[in-house]
Protein backbone atom coordinates (compact mmCIF):
# COMPACT_ATOMS: atom_id res chain seq x y z
CA UNK A 1 0.00 0.00 0.00
CA UNK A 2 1.26 3.46 -0.77
CA UNK A 3 2.12 5.69 2.14
CA UNK A 4 -0.22 8.42 0.86
CA UNK A 5 -3.19 6.07 0.77
CA UNK A 6 -2.35 4.76 4.23
CA UNK A 7 -2.36 8.34 5.50
CA UNK A 8 -5.90 8.96 4.25
CA UNK A 9 -7.07 5.64 5.64
CA UNK A 10 -5.52 6.48 8.97
CA UNK A 11 -7.20 9.88 9.01
CA UNK A 12 -10.54 8.24 8.29
CA UNK A 13 -10.03 5.69 11.04
CA UNK A 14 -9.06 8.44 13.47
CA UNK A 15 -12.39 10.12 12.77
CA UNK A 16 -14.15 7.10 14.30
CA UNK A 17 -12.88 8.46 17.59
CA UNK A 18 -14.90 11.61 17.04
CA UNK A 19 -17.99 9.55 16.46
CA UNK A 20 -17.49 7.66 19.71
CA UNK A 21 -17.01 10.94 21.52
CA UNK A 22 -20.40 11.84 20.06
CA UNK A 23 -21.88 8.71 21.62
CA UNK A 24 -20.37 9.72 24.95
CA UNK A 25 -21.82 13.21 24.69
CA UNK A 26 -25.20 11.72 23.92
CA UNK A 27 -24.96 9.67 27.11
CA UNK A 28 -23.94 12.66 29.18
CA UNK A 29 -26.64 15.00 27.97
CA UNK A 30 -29.28 12.30 27.87
CA UNK A 31 -28.62 11.28 31.45
CA UNK A 32 -28.47 14.89 32.54
CA UNK A 33 -31.82 15.54 30.94
CA UNK A 34 -33.31 12.42 32.51
CA UNK A 35 -32.04 13.48 35.91
CA UNK A 36 -33.15 17.05 35.39
CA UNK A 37 -36.68 15.96 34.55
CA UNK A 38 -36.85 13.80 37.67
CA UNK A 39 -35.54 16.53 39.93
CA UNK A 40 -35.68 19.90 38.21
CA UNK A 41 -34.73 21.73 41.39
CA UNK A 42 -31.29 20.13 41.45
CA UNK A 43 -30.65 20.50 37.72
CA UNK A 44 -29.20 23.99 37.77
CA UNK A 45 -26.77 23.12 40.52
CA UNK A 46 -25.30 20.28 38.50
CA UNK A 47 -24.77 22.34 35.39
CA UNK A 48 -21.10 22.83 36.14
CA UNK A 49 -20.52 19.11 36.35
CA UNK A 50 -22.40 18.67 33.10
CA UNK A 51 -20.08 21.12 31.36
CA UNK A 52 -17.07 19.48 33.00
CA UNK A 53 -18.09 16.07 31.69
CA UNK A 54 -18.82 17.56 28.32
CA UNK A 55 -15.38 19.15 28.17
CA UNK A 56 -13.49 16.02 29.23
CA UNK A 57 -15.40 13.81 26.81
CA UNK A 58 -15.15 16.22 23.95
CA UNK A 59 -11.41 16.60 24.59
CA UNK A 60 -10.95 12.97 23.55
CA UNK A 61 -12.87 13.66 20.37
CA UNK A 62 -10.65 16.69 19.77
CA UNK A 63 -7.59 14.49 20.18
CA UNK A 64 -8.76 12.22 17.40
CA UNK A 65 -9.54 15.27 15.27
CA UNK A 66 -5.98 16.41 15.93
CA UNK A 67 -4.59 13.03 14.88
CA UNK A 68 -6.70 13.09 11.73
CA UNK A 69 -5.53 16.60 10.87
CA UNK A 70 -1.89 15.70 11.46
CA UNK A 71 -2.26 12.62 9.28
CA UNK A 72 -3.98 14.61 6.53
CA UNK A 73 -1.67 17.61 6.40
CA UNK A 74 1.56 16.33 7.94
CA UNK B 1 -32.25 21.91 -12.76
CA UNK B 2 -35.13 20.59 -10.73
CA UNK B 3 -32.93 17.87 -9.28
CA UNK B 4 -29.88 19.96 -8.53
CA UNK B 5 -30.23 21.35 -5.01
CA UNK B 6 -27.18 23.56 -5.40
CA UNK B 7 -28.38 25.36 -8.50
CA UNK B 8 -30.41 27.88 -6.50
CA UNK B 9 -27.21 29.34 -5.09
CA UNK B 10 -25.55 30.06 -8.42
CA UNK B 11 -24.56 33.65 -8.95
CA UNK B 12 -25.41 34.95 -12.39
CA UNK B 13 -24.26 38.20 -13.87
CA UNK B 14 -27.27 40.24 -14.90
CA UNK B 15 -25.39 43.36 -16.00
CA UNK B 16 -21.67 42.74 -16.50
CA UNK B 17 -19.64 45.71 -15.28
CA UNK B 18 -15.89 45.79 -15.10
CA UNK B 19 -13.93 48.76 -13.82
CA UNK B 20 -10.17 48.69 -13.88
CA UNK B 21 -9.97 44.91 -14.02
CA UNK B 22 -12.27 44.54 -11.01
CA UNK B 23 -15.47 42.64 -11.60
CA UNK B 24 -18.29 44.83 -10.32
CA UNK B 25 -21.11 43.11 -12.18
CA UNK B 26 -24.67 43.54 -11.06
CA UNK B 27 -25.51 39.94 -10.15
CA UNK B 28 -28.67 38.27 -8.97
CA UNK B 29 -27.19 38.55 -5.49
CA UNK B 30 -26.96 42.33 -5.88
CA UNK B 31 -30.48 42.40 -7.23
CA UNK B 32 -31.86 40.64 -4.19
CA UNK B 33 -29.84 42.80 -1.81
CA UNK B 34 -31.39 45.81 -3.50
CA UNK B 35 -34.79 44.12 -3.20
CA UNK B 36 -34.10 43.50 0.47
CA UNK B 37 -33.30 47.13 1.13
CA UNK B 38 -36.30 48.21 -0.92
CA UNK B 39 -38.58 45.75 0.88
CA UNK B 40 -37.45 46.77 4.35
CA UNK B 41 -37.65 50.47 3.55
CA UNK B 42 -41.03 50.13 1.89
CA UNK B 43 -42.42 48.21 4.85
CA UNK B 44 -41.23 50.73 7.39
CA UNK B 45 -42.11 53.80 5.33
CA UNK B 46 -45.54 52.61 4.26
CA UNK B 47 -46.41 51.36 7.72
CA UNK B 48 -45.54 54.65 9.37
CA UNK B 49 -46.96 56.92 6.67
CA UNK B 50 -50.22 57.69 8.46
CA UNK B 51 -49.07 57.73 12.02
CA UNK B 52 -51.83 57.51 14.57
CA UNK B 53 -51.85 57.29 18.32
CA UNK B 54 -53.94 54.16 17.97
CA UNK B 55 -51.90 52.35 15.36
CA UNK B 56 -53.21 50.59 12.32
CA UNK B 57 -52.16 47.00 11.71
CA UNK B 58 -49.18 47.93 9.57
CA UNK B 59 -48.05 50.54 12.04
CA UNK B 60 -48.36 47.98 14.84
CA UNK B 61 -46.11 45.60 12.93
CA UNK B 62 -43.51 48.29 12.38
CA UNK B 63 -43.68 49.38 16.00
CA UNK B 64 -43.38 45.77 17.13
CA UNK B 65 -40.16 45.24 15.21
CA UNK B 66 -38.85 48.55 16.53
CA UNK B 67 -39.69 47.76 20.12
CA UNK B 68 -38.43 44.21 19.82
CA UNK B 69 -34.99 45.36 18.73
CA UNK B 70 -35.06 48.21 21.24
CA UNK B 71 -35.79 45.83 24.12
CA UNK B 72 -33.15 43.37 22.95
CA UNK B 73 -30.56 46.11 22.78
CA UNK B 74 -31.53 47.70 26.09
CA UNK B 75 -31.59 44.39 27.91
CA UNK B 76 -28.20 43.27 26.72
CA UNK B 77 -26.22 46.48 26.35
CA UNK B 78 -28.01 48.82 28.75
CA UNK B 79 -29.30 52.24 27.80
CA UNK B 80 -25.77 53.30 26.84
CA UNK B 81 -26.13 50.93 23.91
CA UNK B 82 -29.05 52.85 22.47
CA UNK B 83 -26.73 54.95 20.33
CA UNK B 84 -26.16 51.78 18.32
CA UNK B 85 -29.85 51.28 17.77
CA UNK B 86 -29.82 52.32 14.09
CA UNK B 87 -26.97 49.94 13.41
CA UNK B 88 -28.57 46.95 15.13
CA UNK B 89 -31.99 47.67 13.71
CA UNK B 90 -30.58 47.94 10.19
CA UNK B 91 -28.74 44.65 10.57
CA UNK B 92 -31.82 42.94 11.97
CA UNK B 93 -34.13 44.21 9.25
CA UNK B 94 -31.64 43.46 6.49
CA UNK B 95 -31.11 39.86 7.57
CA UNK B 96 -34.77 39.28 8.33
CA UNK B 97 -36.01 40.64 5.03
CA UNK B 98 -33.23 38.92 3.06
CA UNK B 99 -34.13 35.60 4.67
CA UNK B 100 -37.82 36.15 4.00
CA UNK B 101 -37.24 37.10 0.35
CA UNK B 102 -35.29 33.87 0.04
CA UNK B 103 -38.37 31.92 1.07
CA UNK B 104 -40.11 32.70 -2.23
CA UNK B 105 -39.70 29.89 -4.74
CA UNK B 106 -37.10 30.67 -7.43
CA UNK B 107 -35.79 33.59 -5.42
CA UNK B 108 -32.18 33.96 -4.45
CA UNK B 109 -31.21 33.84 -0.78
CA UNK B 110 -28.62 36.51 -0.17
CA UNK B 111 -27.67 35.24 3.29
CA UNK B 112 -26.85 31.74 2.01
CA UNK B 113 -23.51 33.03 0.74
CA UNK B 114 -20.75 33.17 3.29
CA UNK B 115 -19.22 36.26 1.73
CA UNK B 116 -22.36 38.23 2.57
CA UNK B 117 -22.64 36.97 6.14
CA UNK B 118 -18.90 37.36 6.66
CA UNK B 119 -19.10 40.97 5.50
CA UNK B 120 -21.97 41.60 7.93
CA UNK B 121 -20.22 40.00 10.88
CA UNK B 122 -16.91 41.70 10.12
CA UNK B 123 -18.76 45.01 10.11
CA UNK B 124 -20.04 44.21 13.59
CA UNK B 125 -16.62 43.24 14.89
CA UNK B 126 -14.93 46.26 13.34
CA UNK B 127 -17.51 48.55 14.92
CA UNK B 128 -16.95 46.82 18.26
CA UNK B 129 -13.18 47.14 18.00
CA UNK B 130 -13.20 50.76 16.89
CA UNK B 131 -15.77 51.87 19.41
CA UNK B 132 -14.13 49.86 22.18
CA UNK B 133 -10.72 51.39 21.61
CA UNK B 134 -12.13 54.85 20.95
CA UNK B 135 -14.21 54.91 24.11
CA UNK B 136 -12.01 52.97 26.52
CA UNK B 137 -8.57 53.40 25.01
CA UNK B 138 -6.29 50.59 26.01
CA UNK B 139 -8.73 49.79 28.81
CA UNK B 140 -10.60 47.85 26.17
CA UNK B 141 -7.89 45.20 26.46
CA UNK B 142 -9.23 44.42 29.93
CA UNK B 143 -11.82 42.45 28.02
CA UNK B 144 -9.16 39.80 27.49
CA UNK B 145 -7.87 39.76 31.06
CA UNK B 146 -10.56 38.48 33.39
CA UNK B 147 -10.20 39.53 37.01
CA UNK B 148 -9.92 37.06 39.86
CA UNK B 149 -7.76 34.55 37.99
CA UNK B 150 -4.57 33.13 39.59
CA UNK B 151 -1.41 34.79 38.25
CA UNK B 152 -0.05 31.50 36.92
CA UNK B 153 -3.06 30.89 34.75
CA UNK B 154 -3.39 34.46 33.51
CA UNK B 155 -1.43 34.29 30.23
CA UNK B 156 -3.14 31.05 29.39
CA UNK B 157 -6.61 32.41 30.07
CA UNK B 158 -5.81 35.59 28.16
CA UNK B 159 -4.78 33.56 25.14
CA UNK B 160 -8.04 31.63 25.35
CA UNK B 161 -10.01 34.86 25.65
CA UNK B 162 -8.29 36.25 22.57
CA UNK B 163 -9.05 33.07 20.64
CA UNK B 164 -12.64 33.24 21.80
CA UNK B 165 -12.83 36.83 20.59
CA UNK B 166 -11.38 35.93 17.20
CA UNK B 167 -13.86 33.12 16.83
CA UNK B 168 -16.79 35.51 17.24
CA UNK B 169 -17.05 36.88 13.70
CA UNK B 170 -16.50 33.36 12.38
CA UNK B 171 -19.25 31.80 14.43
CA UNK B 172 -21.50 34.76 13.65
CA UNK B 173 -21.07 34.40 9.90
CA UNK B 174 -20.97 30.60 9.78
CA UNK B 175 -24.13 30.23 11.82
CA UNK B 176 -26.26 32.39 9.56
CA UNK B 177 -24.77 31.07 6.33
CA UNK B 178 -24.91 27.40 7.34
CA UNK B 179 -28.49 27.63 8.57
CA UNK B 180 -29.78 29.27 5.42
CA UNK B 181 -27.75 27.03 3.10
CA UNK B 182 -28.68 23.79 4.85
CA UNK B 183 -32.34 24.74 5.15
CA UNK B 184 -32.72 25.63 1.50
CA UNK B 185 -30.86 22.53 0.32
CA UNK B 186 -33.05 20.29 2.49
CA UNK B 187 -36.15 21.98 1.18
CA UNK B 188 -35.01 21.50 -2.39
CA UNK B 189 -34.06 17.86 -1.85
CA UNK B 190 -37.44 16.99 -0.37
CA UNK B 191 -39.24 18.89 -3.11
CA UNK B 192 -37.12 16.90 -5.59
CA UNK B 193 -38.36 13.67 -4.01
CA UNK B 194 -41.94 14.73 -4.66
CA UNK B 195 -41.21 15.30 -8.35
CA UNK B 196 -39.17 12.11 -8.73
CA UNK B 197 -41.76 9.93 -7.03
CA UNK B 198 -44.68 11.66 -8.69
CA UNK B 199 -43.42 10.76 -12.13
CA UNK B 200 -43.22 7.06 -11.22
CA UNK B 201 -46.87 6.08 -11.63
CA UNK B 202 -49.76 5.69 -9.20
CA UNK B 203 -47.82 4.08 -6.34
CA UNK B 204 -45.22 6.78 -6.75
CA UNK B 205 -47.83 9.50 -6.33
CA UNK B 206 -49.04 7.78 -3.17
CA UNK B 207 -45.47 7.65 -1.94
CA UNK B 208 -44.94 11.29 -2.83
CA UNK B 209 -47.44 12.39 -0.19
CA UNK B 210 -44.93 11.88 2.58
CA UNK B 211 -42.17 14.11 1.18
CA UNK B 212 -44.83 16.66 0.25
CA UNK B 213 -45.92 16.86 3.89
CA UNK B 214 -42.28 17.09 4.86
CA UNK B 215 -41.78 19.94 2.41
CA UNK B 216 -44.68 21.89 3.86
CA UNK B 217 -43.43 21.31 7.39
CA UNK B 218 -39.90 22.27 6.40
CA UNK B 219 -41.17 25.47 4.83
CA UNK B 220 -42.74 26.42 8.13
CA UNK B 221 -39.52 25.51 9.91
CA UNK B 222 -37.57 27.63 7.46
CA UNK B 223 -39.74 30.66 8.24
CA UNK B 224 -38.97 30.08 11.91
CA UNK B 225 -35.25 29.76 11.17
CA UNK B 226 -35.31 32.89 9.01
CA UNK B 227 -36.70 34.98 11.86
CA UNK B 228 -34.67 33.22 14.53
CA UNK B 229 -31.36 33.73 12.74
CA UNK B 230 -32.04 37.42 12.32
CA UNK B 231 -32.82 37.58 16.04
CA UNK B 232 -29.69 35.62 16.99
CA UNK B 233 -27.54 37.86 14.84
CA UNK B 234 -29.08 40.96 16.39
CA UNK B 235 -28.74 39.77 19.97
CA UNK B 236 -25.14 38.66 19.49
CA UNK B 237 -24.38 42.05 17.98
CA UNK B 238 -25.88 43.59 21.12
CA UNK B 239 -23.79 41.38 23.39
CA UNK B 240 -20.59 42.23 21.54
CA UNK B 241 -21.45 45.92 21.60
CA UNK B 242 -21.98 45.53 25.33
CA UNK B 243 -18.41 44.29 25.58
CA UNK B 244 -17.25 47.39 23.77
CA UNK B 245 -19.29 49.70 26.00
CA UNK B 246 -18.48 48.03 29.33
CA UNK B 247 -15.25 46.08 28.75
CA UNK B 248 -14.32 45.31 32.37
CA UNK B 249 -15.30 41.89 33.62
Amino acid at each position, binding site marked *: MEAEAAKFLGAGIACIGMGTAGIGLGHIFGNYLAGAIRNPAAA*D*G*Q*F*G*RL*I*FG*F*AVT*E*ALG*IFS*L*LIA*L*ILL*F*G | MAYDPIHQFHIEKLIPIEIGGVDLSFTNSSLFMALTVAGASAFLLLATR*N*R*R*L*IPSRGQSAAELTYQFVE*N*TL*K*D*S*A*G*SAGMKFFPFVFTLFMFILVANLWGMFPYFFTVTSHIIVTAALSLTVIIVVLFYGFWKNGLGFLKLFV*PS*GVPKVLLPFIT*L*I*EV*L*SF*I*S*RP*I*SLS*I*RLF*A*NMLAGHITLKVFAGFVVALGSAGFLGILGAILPLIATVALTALEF*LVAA*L*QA*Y*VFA*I*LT*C*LYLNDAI*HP*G*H
Partner: protein
Amino acid sequence: MRHKDGKSDPQAAEDAALSGRLRDLDKRLGENRAARGRGVDERPEPPRAGAALAMRMAADFVAGILVGAAIGWGVDQLFGTWPWGLAVFLLLGFAAGILSVIRTSGVARAPAGGGDGFAPPAKDDEED
Protein backbone atom coordinates in the same frame (compact mmCIF):
# COMPACT_ATOMS: atom_id res chain seq x y z
CA MET C 1 -50.26 66.73 8.47
CA ARG C 2 -51.52 63.64 10.05
CA HIS C 3 -54.42 63.26 7.66
CA LYS C 4 -54.66 63.97 4.00
CA ASP C 5 -58.36 64.73 3.92
CA GLY C 6 -60.56 66.91 6.04
CA LYS C 7 -63.21 64.33 6.83
CA SER C 8 -61.21 62.82 9.70
CA ASP C 9 -61.56 65.90 11.89
CA PRO C 10 -63.35 64.05 14.70
CA GLN C 11 -60.55 61.52 14.58
CA ALA C 12 -58.01 64.27 14.87
CA ALA C 13 -59.82 65.65 17.90
CA GLU C 14 -59.91 62.20 19.40
CA ASP C 15 -56.19 61.89 18.73
CA ALA C 16 -55.54 65.17 20.45
CA ALA C 17 -57.52 64.05 23.50
CA LEU C 18 -55.63 60.77 23.57
CA SER C 19 -52.34 62.61 23.23
CA GLY C 20 -53.25 64.67 26.26
CA ARG C 21 -54.02 61.56 28.24
CA LEU C 22 -50.81 59.97 27.09
CA ARG C 23 -48.78 62.97 28.21
CA ASP C 24 -50.55 62.87 31.54
CA LEU C 25 -49.79 59.19 31.93
CA ASP C 26 -46.21 59.82 30.90
CA LYS C 27 -45.85 62.46 33.57
CA ARG C 28 -47.28 60.25 36.27
CA LEU C 29 -45.15 57.33 35.13
CA GLY C 30 -42.14 59.62 35.20
CA GLU C 31 -42.82 60.53 38.84
CA ASN C 32 -43.27 56.91 39.70
CA ARG C 33 -40.08 55.93 37.93
CA ALA C 34 -38.11 58.69 39.58
CA ALA C 35 -39.32 57.46 42.94
CA ARG C 36 -38.20 53.94 42.14
CA GLY C 37 -34.79 55.07 40.95
CA ARG C 38 -33.37 54.28 37.59
CA GLY C 39 -33.78 50.61 36.97
CA VAL C 40 -33.21 50.11 33.31
CA ASP C 41 -29.47 50.27 33.00
CA GLU C 42 -28.66 47.90 35.79
CA ARG C 43 -29.60 44.54 34.43
CA PRO C 44 -28.28 43.82 31.00
CA GLU C 45 -29.44 40.23 31.17
CA PRO C 46 -30.45 39.24 27.67
CA PRO C 47 -33.88 37.85 26.97
CA ARG C 48 -33.56 34.21 26.15
CA ALA C 49 -35.31 31.96 23.74
CA GLY C 50 -34.39 28.29 23.96
CA ALA C 51 -33.95 27.70 20.25
CA ALA C 52 -31.85 30.83 19.84
CA LEU C 53 -29.58 29.70 22.67
CA ALA C 54 -29.14 26.24 21.16
CA MET C 55 -28.23 27.76 17.80
CA ARG C 56 -25.61 29.93 19.44
CA MET C 57 -23.95 27.16 21.43
CA ALA C 58 -23.19 24.75 18.61
CA ALA C 59 -21.78 27.38 16.29
CA ASP C 60 -19.71 29.03 19.02
CA PHE C 61 -18.11 25.74 19.96
CA VAL C 62 -17.28 24.74 16.39
CA ALA C 63 -15.99 28.22 15.56
CA GLY C 64 -13.62 28.11 18.52
CA ILE C 65 -12.09 24.87 17.30
CA LEU C 66 -11.89 26.10 13.71
CA VAL C 67 -10.12 29.28 14.74
CA GLY C 68 -7.74 27.34 16.96
CA ALA C 69 -6.89 24.92 14.16
CA ALA C 70 -6.43 27.72 11.64
CA ILE C 71 -4.17 29.77 13.89
CA GLY C 72 -2.16 26.68 14.85
CA TRP C 73 -1.71 25.77 11.21
CA GLY C 74 -0.62 29.32 10.43
CA VAL C 75 1.88 29.28 13.31
CA ASP C 76 3.28 26.03 12.00
CA GLN C 77 3.63 27.48 8.51
CA LEU C 78 5.42 30.54 9.87
CA PHE C 79 7.78 28.93 12.33
CA GLY C 80 8.09 25.38 11.02
CA THR C 81 6.96 23.81 14.26
CA TRP C 82 4.71 21.15 12.73
CA PRO C 83 2.68 19.62 14.37
CA TRP C 84 3.04 21.30 17.77
CA GLY C 85 1.43 24.61 16.87
CA LEU C 86 -1.62 22.81 15.56
CA ALA C 87 -1.82 20.61 18.65
CA VAL C 88 -1.49 23.46 21.14
CA PHE C 89 -3.77 25.91 19.37
CA LEU C 90 -6.38 23.28 18.58
CA LEU C 91 -6.64 22.54 22.29
CA LEU C 92 -6.68 26.26 23.11
CA GLY C 93 -9.39 26.80 20.53
CA PHE C 94 -11.30 23.93 22.11
CA ALA C 95 -10.98 25.64 25.47
CA ALA C 96 -12.20 28.88 23.93
CA GLY C 97 -15.17 27.01 22.49
CA ILE C 98 -16.01 25.57 25.91
CA LEU C 99 -15.67 29.04 27.38
CA SER C 100 -18.18 30.38 24.86
CA VAL C 101 -20.59 27.57 25.65
CA ILE C 102 -20.27 28.21 29.38
CA ARG C 103 -20.89 31.91 28.79
CA THR C 104 -23.96 31.28 26.72
CA SER C 105 -25.43 28.79 29.16
CA GLY C 106 -24.23 30.71 32.20
CA VAL C 107 -26.51 33.47 31.04
CA ALA C 108 -29.25 30.91 30.62
CA ARG C 109 -29.22 29.68 34.19
CA ALA C 110 -28.46 33.01 35.83
CA PRO C 111 -31.89 33.43 37.51
CA ALA C 112 -31.59 30.16 39.44
CA GLY C 113 -28.12 31.10 40.58
CA GLY C 114 -27.26 27.82 42.27
CA GLY C 115 -23.59 27.40 41.44
CA ASP C 116 -21.75 24.56 43.15
CA GLY C 117 -18.16 25.65 42.75
CA PHE C 118 -17.59 23.73 39.56
CA ALA C 119 -19.16 26.28 37.32
CA PRO C 120 -17.62 29.71 37.00
CA PRO C 121 -20.10 32.17 38.44
CA ALA C 122 -22.29 33.51 35.70
CA LYS C 123 -21.90 37.10 36.82
CA ASP C 124 -18.26 37.09 35.72
CA ASP C 125 -19.21 36.75 32.15
CA GLU C 126 -21.72 38.89 30.44
CA GLU C 127 -23.41 40.89 33.09
CA ASP C 128 -21.20 43.88 33.58
